């Protein structure tokens, strides 16, 4: 190749990489697509018009913004953004700007930890709303603990998240030791005699599957199999023995991007069992991927579609107007998490007599907040669990992803958080 040709080819390649992304720079960060940064980096925060007064306080989010779970991860980011826009007034009156700094943890623990290190280095970040995956939250929160940076989780359900009794870790949702049991009780209520349990080998998926299995055993439901898999495409080898054993119900402990493909293939191979799953199923993308195979399926969740929260109607409308799609599950929880974070920041500023509060002060303040938000009244116990948490059992009624919020609410339970095991 001639030298000029090589140079022009290089320029062409670089232009080809840069030009498609320029429209994204001009738009607000909430607009799609998320061209996920190869190295974890914050997306641009929305511009603030006001002149900074005493400083800027930042609220960070960590959730998967790219990859198979982006639907839920984006919901968490958007819910937080909406909360900041609507509720930052009191903090601004005290002289501080409030900004959102979203991070993409790609549902991977190492990326989450790497982002966490960047987050703790930014002194303006006082609260983190995140994560989606317990397997990412647990190691990342170890990093936040180093500086007692408050993490308020909208979606992490694995018990270990709060059982470590860290001051800076709290969650607004329920726990899997309860959720798995709720699932098993529901299966028992449907008179299921045998179950086949699959999980995705993450702390979340395996955890909730084990809790399901333990309670199912107590209820004398025969567990025909307990398999873990990281497979995303070829489930034939697992489905074949499972189909031959003919379970009454199949429980998948994992997230919708994997479960939808699994259930779809299972139906295609003639599996007639009922399907059941935990809150990882709770996303409209589940039916987008799985289609008709999933109609009639049940799932337990700690979040639920926005229709189950009476106060969330105006939130749902505003979300739709701003982000041009229906609010995903966990967006309302992220809204409440951010609201709690901001109340805590406000209290901490006042306690610091108008100066920028320390992270520890904010973390302590989070625990004292009693907040009535979109998802109910939230009050934390001594380890960071909400004193009372809601658990829902829902039935999928349509294979249209836009009708996800119409899923039928079969049962609602309000259960106290289990105490810390000594």
């Amino acid at each position: 190749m001639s030298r000029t040709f090589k140079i022009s080819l290089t320029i062409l390649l670089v232009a080809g990489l840069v030009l498609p992304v320029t429209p994204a720079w001009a738009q607000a960060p909430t607009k799609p697509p998320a061209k996920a940064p190869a190295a974890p980096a914050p997306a641009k925060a929305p511009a603030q018009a006001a002149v900074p007064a005493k400083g800027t306080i930042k609220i960070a989010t960590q959730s998967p913004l790219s990859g198979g779970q982006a639907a839920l991860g984006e919901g968490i980011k958007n819910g937080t953004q909406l909360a900041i826009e609507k509720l930052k007034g009191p903090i601004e009156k005290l002289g501080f700007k409030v900004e959102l700094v979203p991070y993409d943890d790609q549902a991977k623990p190492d990326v989450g930890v790497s982002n966490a290190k960047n987050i703790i280095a930014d002194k303006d970040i006082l609260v983190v709303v995140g994560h989606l995956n317990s397997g990412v939250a647990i190691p990342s929160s170890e990093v936040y603990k180093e500086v007692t940076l408050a993490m308020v989780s909208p979606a992490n359900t694995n018990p270990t998240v709060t059982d470590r009794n860290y001051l800076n870790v709290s969650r607004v949702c329920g726990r899997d030791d309860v959720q798995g049991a709720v699932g098993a009780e529901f299966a028992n209520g449907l008179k299921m005699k045998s179950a086949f349990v699959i999980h995705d080998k993450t702390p979340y998926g395996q955890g909730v599957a084990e809790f399901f299995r333990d309670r199912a055993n107590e209820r004398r439901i025969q567990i025909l199999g307990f398999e873990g898999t990281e497979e995303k495409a070829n489930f034939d080898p697992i489905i074949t023995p499972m189909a031959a054993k003919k379970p009454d119900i199949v429980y998948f402990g994992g997230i919708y991007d994997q479960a939808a493909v699994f259930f779809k293939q299972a139906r295609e191979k003639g599996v007639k069992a009922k399907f059941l799953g935990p809150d990882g199923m709770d996303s409209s993308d589940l039916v987008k991927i799985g289609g008709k195979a999933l109609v009639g399926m049940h799932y337990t969740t700690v979040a639920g579609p926005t229709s189950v929260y009476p106060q969330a109607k105006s939130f749902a409308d505003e979300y739709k107007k701003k982000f041009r799609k229906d609010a995903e599950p966990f967006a309302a929880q992220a809204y409440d998490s951010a609201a709690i974070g901001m109340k805590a920041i406000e209290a901490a500023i006042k306690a610091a007599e108008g100066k920028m509060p320390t992270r520890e002060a904010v973390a302590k303040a989070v625990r004292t907040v009693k907040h009535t938000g979109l998802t109910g009244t939230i009050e934390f116990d001594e380890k960071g669990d909400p004193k009372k948490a809601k658990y829902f059992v829902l039935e999928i009624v349509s294979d249209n992803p836009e009708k996800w919020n119409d899923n039928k609410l079969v049962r609602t339970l309000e259960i106290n958080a289990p105490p810390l095991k000594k």
Partner: protein
Amino acid sequence: MELALAIFPQVLMDGIVLGFMYALIALGYTMVYGVLEFINFAHSEIFMFGAFVGVEILLGLRARELLDPLNPFLVLLVIILLAMALSGALAVAIERVAYRPLRGAPRLVPLISAIGVSFFLQDAVRLFESLWRNAFYLVYPTVDVFNERIKIGETLDFSLKSFIIIIAALLMLVALQFVVNKTKVGKAIRAVAEDQATASLMGINVNRMISLTFLIGGAMGGAAGVLFGVQYSAINPFTGFIPGIKAFTAAVLGGIGNIPGAMVGGLVLGLLEAFSASYLSLLTGGAFGAEYKDIFAFSVLILILIFRPRGLLGEVVRERT
């Protein structure tokens, strides 16, 4: 034990379907190696590209409400042919841009280039799909006809999909064998594979034959991509990676450079993987589950390289003077 027997036919079918898919992909690796003594690591992405071509066409048809009225078999045929054409073209382009300029360089250099192309293609597809569809985890639309169960005898029933895939793969493999062994063009390719210098002395346009090899190998890979999408539904820019490595293992298993060897290797590996995945937990009483199936695939590669490096059907390579 009777459970083990009960699932045997289905596992066998799964293994054959998987095996044919690996065989189609392995052909790309083996043909390129036969002609250039070079392992085209970007081939797994050509496979992935074919899968994406298929899904884009299907989603486009569905958006225009054309998917249901049209005959599904016809649609499948068309998308396989289109995916073959486009993947073949991509393979030829890659050869021109990334490998031909490095013809004289030490062996390692084109290999690194191939790895670079592989990463580039993964992210190029990801970028394109992010901008075009705002999602790069795509799902093949379900065609209900393909999921009908066909009964053989009293106890066996398989989905129509499996048969379609096996027949499609068989047709392609037979066609390839015909082209390579019974046509003049095939003879030219075999000549270039055996001795490039002498072939060019005989009047064969070596560069054109090499491009043709990439075209054929890429086409096979692209077709495998569509079949993969039809069988397993969910694809993303990174789905090429693991099947690519396994197909490469299959090619080595059968004898790298040997076309029937790639077919045999693919089948053997597919069967091995399907059987190990389905039977592992049964045989070990739940101690080892299906997630360990990949250990079998890669252990086979290691054992083959240690004990029979030329593969099952390969010939011992004599030093060329």
